[in-house]
C-alpha cells in the first residue's frame, strides 16, 4: 500500500513535523526557542548527531549576532535539509552493542559502574557529572551493581520513526 505522494507533499509533511517539534519548546508562541533546546528538538526528530555536529548546525542557524534564541525561519530550511538528506542516521543496535563490547575488554557481558563512568567522562565527547549519574541510575542493575549492556540497549531504543 505505497503512498504515491508528490515530492511537495512529502516536504510539507516534513515541515509540519519540524514545526510541531519546534512548537513544543516555543513557550511564548514567539517562533523562537532557546538555543539550548535545539539539540533536543533535532534529536527528537530521529537524528543522532554528535555534539560537534550539533554545534555546527547551531552555528548555521544562529543569528549574525547570537541572541541565545534560534528562530524558526532559519531552523526550518536547515532541518528540512537534514531530514531529506538523512543526515545523522540512527545507530543500528548491533553496532551499538559492538561499541559496548569494545569497552568490555574482558568480554564479561557487563560493565562495572566505575568502568562505564570512566569511559563516559574521559573519552569521546565527555558526559557531565549529571549526565553520567543519570545514565547510571537508569542503566545500573540494582542487585548486582553492574550494567548489562545488551539489555540496556534493548530497553533504551525507541522503535518508531
Amino acid at each position, binding site marked *: 500500500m505505497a*503512498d504515491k505522494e508528490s515530492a511537495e507533499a512529502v516536504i510539507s509533511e516534513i515541515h509540519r513535523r519540524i514545526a510541531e517539534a519546534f512548537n513544543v519548546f516555543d513557550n511564548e508562541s514567539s517562533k523562537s526557542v532557546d538555543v539550548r533546546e535545539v*539539540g533536543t528538538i533535532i*534529536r527528537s526528530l530521529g537524528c543522532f548527531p554528535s555534539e560537534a555536529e550539533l554545534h555546527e548546525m547551531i552555528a548555521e542557524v544562529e543569528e549574525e549576532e547570537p541572541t541565545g534564541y534560534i528562530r524558526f525561519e532559519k531552523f526550518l530550511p536547515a532541518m528540512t535539509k537534514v531530514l531529506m538528506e538523512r543526515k545523522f542516521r540512527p*545507530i543500528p543496535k548491533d553496532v551499538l552493542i559492538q*561499541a559496548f563490547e569494545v569497552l568490555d575488554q574482558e568480554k564479561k557481558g557487563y560493565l562495572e559502574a566505575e568502568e562505564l563512568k570512566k569511559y563516559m567522562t574521559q*573519552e*569521546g565527547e565527555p*558526559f557531565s557529572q549529571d549526565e553520567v549519574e543519570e545514565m547510571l541510575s537508569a542503566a545500573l542493575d540494582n542487585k548486582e551493581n553492574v550494567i548489562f549492556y545488551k539489555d540496556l540497549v534493548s530497553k533504551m531504543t525507541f522503535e518508531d520513526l
Partner: protein
Amino acid sequence: MRAALLIQRWYRQYVARLEMRRRCTWHIFQSIEYAGEQDQIKLYNFFGYLMDHFTPANRNLISHIFRENEICRDIEWERYFCYKNIEVPELYSGPHLSFPLTVSNVADLVEAFKNKQQLHTRYVLQLLLESWKLLRMLPNINQVSTCQTKEITICGDLHGHLEDLLLVFYKNGMPSVEKSYVFNGDFVDRGKDSIEILLILFAFMLLYPNNVHLNRGNHEDYIVNLRYGFTKEVLGKYRLHGKKILKLLQKIFSWLPLATVIDQKVLILHGGISDTTDLNIIAQADRHKYVSTLRPPKRRWVASGGNSTAGRHKVNGRMDNSLQRHCSLAYNSPLRSRYNFQSRSMQNFSSKVNLAVEEELKEQRRMAGLSQSYHDLRSSLSSDSDSDNYETYEDDSNEWKQVIIVDMLWSDPMPQDGCIPNEVRGGGCYWGPDVTEKVLRRHNLQLLIRSHECKQEGYEFCHNRKVLTIFSASNYYEVGSNRGAYIRLGPDLVPHFIQYQANRSTRELTLRQRYRGTFSLRALREQLFAHKSDLLYAFQDYDTDNTGWISLKHWATAVEAVLRLGLPWRVLRSQLVTTTQDGMLDYQGWLRELPITEPKTESLLETMYKQRSNLETIFRIIDSDHSGLISFEEFRQTWKLLSSHLKMEISDEAILDMAVSIDFNKDGSIDINEFMEAFRLVDRTMNLPSEPNHTKTDE
C-alpha cells in the same frame, strides 16, 4: 575513542527523546485541564439556557443554585452552625480542639492529619464558625508590613495536596508570630485532602490572625467544587454532616479576602489583573455577595433596560475599555494561541452546530454579567439618560465589580501587549506586559505575585520580572510532572524561592519511568475514545477508495481537526499508534482498540462518557439535599434537556435502555456513585499500564 563516542551519541539521543515526551506530557495535561475548565463555564451557561427556556417544573430542578442562600442574617447563621448538640464520643481518637485555639491544639491537628486521622464534625463546625467570624472582619485587601513580621512566606495553589503543605511546614517552619504566611488561593479540589488543608489553614489563621493571610482562589467556589472533587470529598468524609459543612463553606469562601499587599509594594492575588483592575474599587466592594464567581446575573437587571448602563457610565469612566474588550469578539479578535486553541463549547459536540459570533458574544457577556446585546449597550451609553432607579444602579455596579473580581481570580498573563478574553479557561482575561505596567504604576507597586497556573519549576517570572507565578502543588498532573515552590520575601522585597517535590519515591524512579507519562496518554486516549464517531467520519473522508487504510499524515490531520486540542500529534504518534504497515494505518482497527468493550448504544454512551464530568456535576446539583440519589424521573428530564441543548435526538426508549443496562436500583432512584462507576469500568478496561502511586485523583 570511537566506541565511547558512539555510545554517547546514542545516549544523548535517548535522553532528548524522553525530554520531548516529558514536554509533550505537560502540554497534554494543560490542554485537557483547560479544556475541562472551559467545559465548566459552558456547563454554567447551559444552566442559564435551562432557566431561560424551560417550564417551572424543569426549572425547579436546579433553580436552587441560583437562589440566594436562604439563611441571610448573621444570627441565623450562628444558629445554623449549631455544633453544641453534636457529641464527641469516647471512642473518638482524633484531635480535640478547644476555643480559643492554643498552639498545642493546632500542633495536634497537624499531627493528626499527618497520621491520616479525621477531625470530628463538632470541631469542624466550631472551627468554621470561628473562622467565619474572623473573616467577616477582614478587609477585601489585606495590608501587611515586613517591619512587623520580618520575612513573609508566600504559597501558591495547594489543591488538596496535604503532603506538599506538610513539606513546606517542614522545610520552612509552621506559621507563628515570627513566621508570616500568605496562602494564595486554590486550597481545595483535585487533591484528596482538601478539607484537611482548609482546616489547617483556618486553624493557623485563628491562632495568628496578624500573621496568616488567605486569598481567595477561583476554586474557593462551591460551583467549581461540584465538579472538581471537593464536594465529593467532604460528602465522603463526613457522611452525616457533610451537607451542612459544605453550605457553611459556601458562605465562608465568599468572605475570603481577595488580595494581599505587602509594604504597599507587592500585590498578591490568585489569578491576575486586567486593564480595569482598580484596587480602590475592589476595596469598596461587598466581596461576600459573590458567592460564586460563576453566578449568572440576577433577573431584575435585564428588566431595567437602557437606563442602567448610564448609571454605570458614571461609576467608572474606564468601563469603556473593558466593554471594548468584551465586545471585541465581534471584530475577530486574535485568539490567544498557545497551541492554536479554539474555543470549545458543549454545542460543538455535534460538530454540525457552529456557534455564530453573536452566540459566542452572548455567552461571554452572560458570563461577564452583561445580558444586553452589544447594540443596546452602545446606544444606551451614548444617551444621557439619568438612572432613576437606584436599585438597578446598585445592581449594575455590583455586576461590574463581579467582572473585576472574576478577572482577579481567573486571569492569566500573556507575552503580547493588550487584554483579551481568556477563551481557554472561559473566565477572566489574558493580560499583557503593558497592562502590568499600567496597573502597577497606577498603584505605585513594584511586583505582582499570582498563582493559578502550574509551572514545572514551581515558579516562573514574566513581564520583565514584574509578574511572578508561584505554584505549590508538586506532582500536580502526575508523579514527576512538576516541582512545587514557595517564596520568602524580606524587607528588601526580593523574592527567594525554595522548590520541592513531594513523594520520596520520585528520586528513585528510573529515567524512563519518570518520563513515562502514561497518565497523560491515558487521558488522551480517553479523549480519543470519546470522539470515536467523529474520528471515524474524518478518517473515512480521507479514505476515498474505502480501503480501510489511511496514511499517518492524514491520521494526524484528522485527529487534530476533530479534537482541536492543539497538540503535536506527529510527535505523539509513536505512542498512540503502535501498529502500522508501510506508513499506513488500519483506522477501524485502531479505533476498536481504544477501549476494550464495544458499547451497544454507541453514540449515546460516547456522549455520556465525554460528558461524564458534566453529568456528574449536573447530578450533584440536582441532588440538592446531597443524598447521593436522584429519581429516575429527574435523571430522564436532565438527560432530555442536555440532549436538546446539544441538539441530539434521544428517545425515551433509548434512555430506558441505558438505564436498564446500567442496572439501577429497583426503587426508581439512581445512586449517583453507581452511575459514575459505569464510566470507571470503561476506564479500567482500556488496558493501559497503571501508575502505582499517583497523587492526582479522578473526579
